[in-house]
C-alpha cells in the first residue's frame, strides 16, 4: 500500500467533509517477540499491523478518530466520526497545525538487515544469554530470556502542505535470573536495546551483569534510619529525570501544575548538573527525523550548569505560550493525540570516575535499585523504595534492601556534589553516576 499517497489523499478528503484543517497520521509495522526459558522456546509472537489517526479542526474545534481498517468505507466512517465528534469540543484559537519546517538529518534509525537475519539466530542469542547466566553456580533458576524487534514506518500529512515519512527499527534482548541461598531469593536481569542488530551487546556481557545483579544482593542487612549520602548508580539516575521531564512539559507549566513553572532562568540545581534533550543523536533510541506532528527535532539544553533553560512544547501548547514548537510532540501510536515528551533525555557526563565517588564517601548508600513514581512533578516531593550497597569509609560494606529514600526536588538537585564520567548514551533516558550529599534514608 502506498501510505504516503494515501495520507495526502485522506487530508484532502477531510477538507471536503467540513474540516477547515486536518492531519493524517499513519503507522505501519511489524513485530517479533521470542521468549525462551530453560533452553527451550516458550513463546514466539509475530505480526504485522497498521492504523490511521485523523485530527480534524472544524471552526476552531478539534477532534480525533482512529481506525485500523483501511477499507474505503471504514476510512470514510472514521473521518465522519471525527468531524461529528468535533461538535462537542470548545473552539480554541490555539488549535493549529504546524507548517512544514523540513526535517532533521539523523543517521542510523533504520537497519535493513534486521528482517534478513534468520529467526534461529535471534532465538540462539536469547538462549545463549540464558545459558551463560545460568553457568554461575550462585544462580539457581531462570525467569527467562527474550528477544524482541520492531520495524515501523510513520507517515504524517497535514493541510498546511506537510507530508513526511520516516522508517525506524529497534531490537532488544535480555535475560532475568534468580539466585537462591537458603530461604533467600534475589532476582536480577540485564538487557540491551539498539536500532541496529549488529550493535547489540554480546551475550557474555548481558549474562554476566544479569547474574551479578541477582547474586550480589544476597545476604542483605538493614541499616538504621538516618541522613546520609546517596550515590545514584548510572542504572538508576533516571529516577530523578522523570519528574523533571514531567515538570518542564509546556502544558503542565501553563496549567500551573509543575514545580518548575516559575523557575525559568533560575538556579534550580547544583552547577554540576546539565540536562539535555537530543532528538538528533545518530542511532539514538529516542532520535527522530521529526516529532509526532512532523516538526523537525533538535538538540536542546534544558538545564545549563544548574540553571533552568528550557520547557518543552508541541504546536498547540507553543501557540498558547507564545513560542515556537520545540519539536517535542510525542505520539502514543495512531490512536492518540500528540502529547509532549523528550527524545534522548540525559544528564551530561561529569569528570569523576564512579570508584572515586564511592572512595570519598564515608557513610552512605550506593543506590542500585529504586521503586516508586520518582519526583512528583506537581510539588517536587520525592519518596521511593531503595536497594543497593552500604558504603563505609570509601568501600562497599554489604548489600541493603527494603530501605526508603526521600527528599524535596530542589534540595536533592542542589545537593548533587559529584557527577561521574560514566554516561551511557545507549539508553534514551539516562544519567551518569552522581552523588547527593545528604538524603533521608528510612530503615530500622
Amino acid at each position, binding site marked *: 500500500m502506498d501510505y504516503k499517497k494515501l495520507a495526502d489523499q485522506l487530508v484532502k478528503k477531510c477538507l471536503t467533509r467540513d474540516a477547515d484543517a486536518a492531519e493524517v497520521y499513519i503507522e505501519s509495522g511489524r513485530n517479533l517477540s521470542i521468549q525462551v526459558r530453560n533452553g*527451550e522456546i516458550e513463546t514466539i*509472537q509475530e505480526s504485522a499491523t497498521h492504523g490511521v489517526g485523523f485530527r480534524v479542526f472544524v471552526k476552531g474545534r478539534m477532534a480525533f478518530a482512529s481506525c485500523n481498517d483501511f477499507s474505503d468505507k471504514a476510512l470514510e466512517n472514521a473521518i465522519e466520526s471525527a468531524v461529528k*465528534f468535533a461538535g462537542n469540543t470548545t473552539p480554541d484559537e490555539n488549535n493549529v497545525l504546524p507548517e512544514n519546517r523540513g526535517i532533521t538529518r539523523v543517521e542510523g534509525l533504520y537497519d535493513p538487515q534486521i528482517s534478513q537475519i534468520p529467526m534461529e539466530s535471534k532465538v540462539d542469542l536469547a538462549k545463549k544469554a540464558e545459558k551463560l547466566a545460568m553457568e554461575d553456580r550462585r544462580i539457581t533458576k531462570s525467569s527467562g530470556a527474550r528477544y524482541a524487534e520492531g520495524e515501523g514506518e510513520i507517515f504524517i500529512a497535514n493541510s498546511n502542505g506537510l507530508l513526511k515519512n520516516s522508517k525506524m527499527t529497534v531490537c532488544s*534482548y535480555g535475560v*532475568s535470573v534468580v539466585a537462591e541461598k537458603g530461604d533467600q531469593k534475589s532476582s536480577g536481569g540485564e538487557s540491551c536495546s539498539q536500532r541496529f542488530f549488529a550493535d547489540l551487546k554480546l551475550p557474555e556481557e548481558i549474562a554476566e551483569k544479569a547474574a551479578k545483579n541477582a547474586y550480589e544482593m544476597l545476604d542483605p542487612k538493614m541499616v538504621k534510619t538516618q541522613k546520609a549520602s546517596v550515590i545514584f548508580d548510572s542504572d538508576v539516575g533516571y529516577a530523578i529525570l522523570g*519528574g523533571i521531564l514531567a515538570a518542564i512539559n509546556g502544558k503542565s507549566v501553563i*496549567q500551573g501544575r509543575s514545580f518548575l513553572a516559575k523557575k525559568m532562568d533560575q538556579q534550580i540545581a547544583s552547577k554540576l548538573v546539565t540536562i539535555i534533550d537530543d532528538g538528533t543523536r545518530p542511532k539514538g533510541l529516542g532520535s527522530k527525523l521529526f516529532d509526532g506532528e512532523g516538526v523537525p527535532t533538535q538538540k536542546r539544553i534544558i538545564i545549563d550548569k544548574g540553571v533552568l533553560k528550557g520547557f518543552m512544547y508541541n504546536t498547540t501548547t507553543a501557540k498558547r505560550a507564545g513560542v515556537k514548537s520545540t519539536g517535542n510532540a510525542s505520539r502514543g501510536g495512531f490512536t492518540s*493525540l500528540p502529547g509532549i515528551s523528550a527524545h534522548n533525555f540525559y544528564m551530561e557526563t561529569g569528570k569523576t570516575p564512579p570508584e572515586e565517588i564511592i572512595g570519598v564517601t564515608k557513610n552512605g548508600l550506593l543506590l542500585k535499585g529504586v521503586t516508586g*513514581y520518582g519526583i512528583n512533578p506537581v510539588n517536587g516531593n520525592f519518596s521511593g523504595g531503595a536497594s543497593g550497597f552500604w558504603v563505609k569509609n570509601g568501600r562497599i560494606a554489604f548489600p541493603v*534492601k527494603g530501605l526508603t529514600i526521600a527528599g524535596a526536588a530542589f534540595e536533592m538537585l542542589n545537593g548533587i556534589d559529584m557527577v561521574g564520567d560514566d554516561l551511557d548514551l545507549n539508553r534514551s533516558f539516562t544519567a551518569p553516576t552522581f552523588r547527593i550529599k545528604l538524603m533521608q534514608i528510612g530503615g530500622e
Partner: protein
Amino acid sequence: MKLKGYFVEDIPRRKFLELSLKGGAAIAATPSLMMQLLSCRGPSPGIAKLKIDPEILNKTLRKALEKGGEFADVYLENRISRRILMEESKFKSALFGISQGAGVRVMSGDKTGFAYTDEITEEKLARAAEVASFIARGAKAVSPVDVQEAKKESFIKVKLPLEKVADEKRLDVMKRANQAALGYDPRIKMASISYYDEIRARTVANSEGLLLSDELPLLFFIVQTLGVSENTRHMGRERLSRHSGYEMFDEVTPEEVAQTCARESIAMLDAKDAPAGIMDVVMQNGWGGVLVHEAVGHPLEGDIIAREIGVFTGKLGKKVASDVFTMVDDGTLPNFRGTTNFDDEGTQMKRNVLIKDGVLVKYMTDILSAKQLKMERTGNGRRESFRYIPIPRMTNTFIEKGKDKPEDILASTKSGLYVQSLSGGSVNPITGMFNFTCREAYLIENGKKTTPVSGATLIGNCMDIISNIDAVGDDLAFGPGICGKGQMAEVSAGQPTVRIRGINVGGSRARR
C-alpha cells in the same frame, strides 16, 4: 517498563513500536519483572457486532494445528471507544476509536505461538494460524473439535446502553463534575475531567469446541483537581469505573466524584513532611486493596508459579498469613470494573478464595498455567486486546471483611501512619518485595488521626505484611484501577480497614 511509573499521567498509552519490544525492554528496564499498577491510561469502536461463519473458525483452528500441537484458539475483537477531555473548563479534545482484529494461538507442550491480524478474513486468519503454528512443527497433532456455540451466565446488567447515550449527556456529566470541583473551594485552581467509554465485542473459539461471544460496555470517569496554596500544590484524583450502562452516573453522581477529589486536594495542602522508618500502618477501606493486589495477588498468578520462581511456589496448603487474613479474587461481582462473563479464553468467571484464614488454598490460572500446574481453570486468562496473548491476571481482588470496627482499629494504634488512599505500587513477584506511594496519609498520634503528611513510599516484603496484619475491619469497599503486566487490564481492588504492624515508610524526616 521502567519509565512507565514516572510518566503515569503524561505518556499516552505506548508507542507503537514498543508494542513488540515490551518483552526485551521490560527485562531491560526492570530486571525483576517489576509490575506497575498504573494510575492513568489512554486508549483507543458505531456498534459493529462480530459476525463470523463458525466454519471459518473451524478452518482456522484446523490450520493452526496442522503442523502439530494440542491446543489452539482464535480471539476476535471489535472495540468502539469515546474519550473526551475537559480541562480549564473547556472541552479540549474528543477522541473516537474503532479497532478490530483477531489473534490466533497455538500451544504445544510448554510452547506457545501467537500471531494477530487487523483484518478478519478467512485468508488473513489462515495466515495468522500458519505463523502461530511455527512453534509446533513436528509435535504430535490433536484434531480440533468443531466449535459449538455456547452461552454463559452474565454478570453485567445494562439499563441504559452506551450506544443509545447522546454525546450531550456525556458532556453534561463532565460539566457537572467540573462545576462541583471548582465550586468546592477557592483554592481549587484547575480541574481535569476525563470521560471514557467503550464497547468491546468478543468472540472466543478453541480447538476444544468452545464458541462464545459477548459485548462488554465499560465506563471510566476520572476527575483530577489541582489545589494551590502559598507553599505547595497537590493534584487530587478520584476515579469511577464499571462494566455497566450509563446508569452508573445515577448511582454515583459526577458531583460526588468531584467533591471527593477536591477534598483530597485541599486536605493535602496542609501536608507536612512524613516520618521515615518502620512503623505501624492503618489503611482505610477501599482502593488501598491495591496493596494486596500487588503484594499478594501478582505472586499468586499461575504463570510465575508454573515457572517455579514465584515467592509462593510450593506453599499451597501452607499457612502464609495471619489467621484474620482471607483474600479473594472474584470476577462475578455484578458490573464491577474487573468483572466479565467469561475470561478472554472463554473460561467462566468465578469467585476464587486464594488465601483462607491465613492458609494458601488456590492460585489464579489461565489455560496454560492450569495445564502446567494440573489445576483448575480459574477464569483469570485475560488480554488487553487481540494484539496480546492471554496471561493470568486478576479481576476484582480484595481482603475479605473481618470483625473489627474501623474506629477501634485506629483507637488501638498508639502511633504510626494512617493511609487514606494510595496512588499505586509495584511488586517483584519473585522476591515478594513491594512498594506503594501514598496519595493521602495522616500521622496517628495516641490513637487519633492528626497531621496530614506528604506522599510517602511504603515498602516491604509480601510474606511479612500478610503475617503482620493483625486487625481487619467490617467495612469492605472497592476502587477501580489499571493493572499493567506487559499489557493492561481493568481491575478493581478492595479491602476493609486493616492494620499492618511494621512497614518501612519513606518519609523525608526522622521520627520525633
